[in-house]
């Protein structure tokens, strides 16, 4: 069936089998391999993308269900000025070890900060509770998300001139 999915602000039209999963469509058809396939059983969150702004597990959504939707993958986080604050914070705070869970962690972190500009440790831990890091590097993931929140808030107050 013919679908058009807006991925990172570009429209991608294509013909998919109904059983094609969104994650496979993103990786194989569109060619964006930043979205990972981890457990493939709705447990690990490595395949997290934002679908119409909400983080979801793209291994558990049919590509056809994303027809007409706006999807953001990790590749879509970067801004005109360079890295997204969540990306630079993960770099600075050593928020990754092997990097496999990182795209999902960063998308969930970015989505959390958009809703809650100053999350506590507990709020961050709750938000990432659907994403597994098998390096168990959670301490620095939490730290990086909070750093990104603080930098985002500081940049916002600077641009407001306050």
């Amino acid at each position, binding site marked *: 069936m013919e679908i058009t999915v807006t991925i990172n602000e570009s429209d991608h039209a294509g013909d998919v089998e*109904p*059983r094609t999963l969104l994650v496979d469509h993103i990786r194989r058809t569109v060619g964006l391999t930043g979205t990972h396939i981890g457990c*493939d059983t*709705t447990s690990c969150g490595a395949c997290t993308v934002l679908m119409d702004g909400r983080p979801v*597990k793209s291994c558990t*959504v*049919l590509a056809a269900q994303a027809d007409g939707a706006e999807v953001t993958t990790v590749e879509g986080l970067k801004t005109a000025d360079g890295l997204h604050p969540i990306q630079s914070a993960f770099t600075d705070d050593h928020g990754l070890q092997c990097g496999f869970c990182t795209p999902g962690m960063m998308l969930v972190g970015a989505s959390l900060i958009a809703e809650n500009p100053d999350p506590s440790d507990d709020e961050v831990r709750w938000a990432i*509770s*659907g994403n597994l890091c098998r390096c168990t590097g959670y301490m620095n993931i939490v730290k990086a998300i909070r750093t990104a929140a603080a930098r985002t808030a500081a940049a916002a107050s600077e641009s407001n001139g306050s």
Partner: protein
Amino acid sequence: MFPSRFDLIVAETISDAVQAKADAGEGGRFLAGGQSLIPMMKMRVAFPEKLIDINRISGMDAIERSNGHLHVGALVRHADVAASDAAFGAIVAAAPWVADPLVRNRGTMCGSVAHCDPEGDWNSVLLATGADVVARGPGGERPIPIGEFVDGAFTSSLAEDELVVGLRIPVPAGRSGGAYLKLERKIGDYATVAVASHLELDDSGAIAAAGLAMTSVNPINTKVVDAEALMVGQQPSAELFAEAAELAAAAAEPRDDVRGTAAWKRQVVRTYTKRGLAAAAQQAEGS
């Protein structure tokens, strides 16, 4: 992994969806959030020939109160329930404990109820609050009390051509409170044990209505009717809740498994029943 081949029918209206299901017969399945069905299809435990996607039907995404009921549409996601001001008591308490945050953004409350997973969280909450499932078939709509809706593990009493279009949960007229206490090994796991509590108080502070149901300690979600009957007409007290907890523990027949021993789970039932009822009473007294 990917599912076996199927035809996808994207329904635009409820009647189209119902008609498509009637045409498809046994080989048809409805798809809402898909957070249970899609994994089952990937594992080839489920292999519908025709999948009827209801996500594009408009008007089913509201959670709101009217005519003394909380109405939850078929496309209300768990995250919407958690964020809703209209929800109350045990419903508010349970919403954040269903699956994990990512699944809650996609999975629907009605889908979860219709799935009849014997270890699902919502059906205990619905048993405690006395909810109806609203089904629509070619002949119109009918409410089905949750106790009659669940026929067994993964089996509902829905007719083949009926779609769950919503839930109808009575909103208590007076003071009320509720709780959902869930023990799980990790976020997203099934409950090791969970207990849903619901209390309504009359003007004198006595219990006017009581709901108590358990998850994961019997072959299906279980309403503890003798404990409910015991509490009605009584003043809330620690002694009363301890007595209710004994009845709940007696009604639980958990099994030894990877999540713990039967004896320990029964003890958790006891503790969670006491704590849950106390929390429900406290919430009701402050409401």
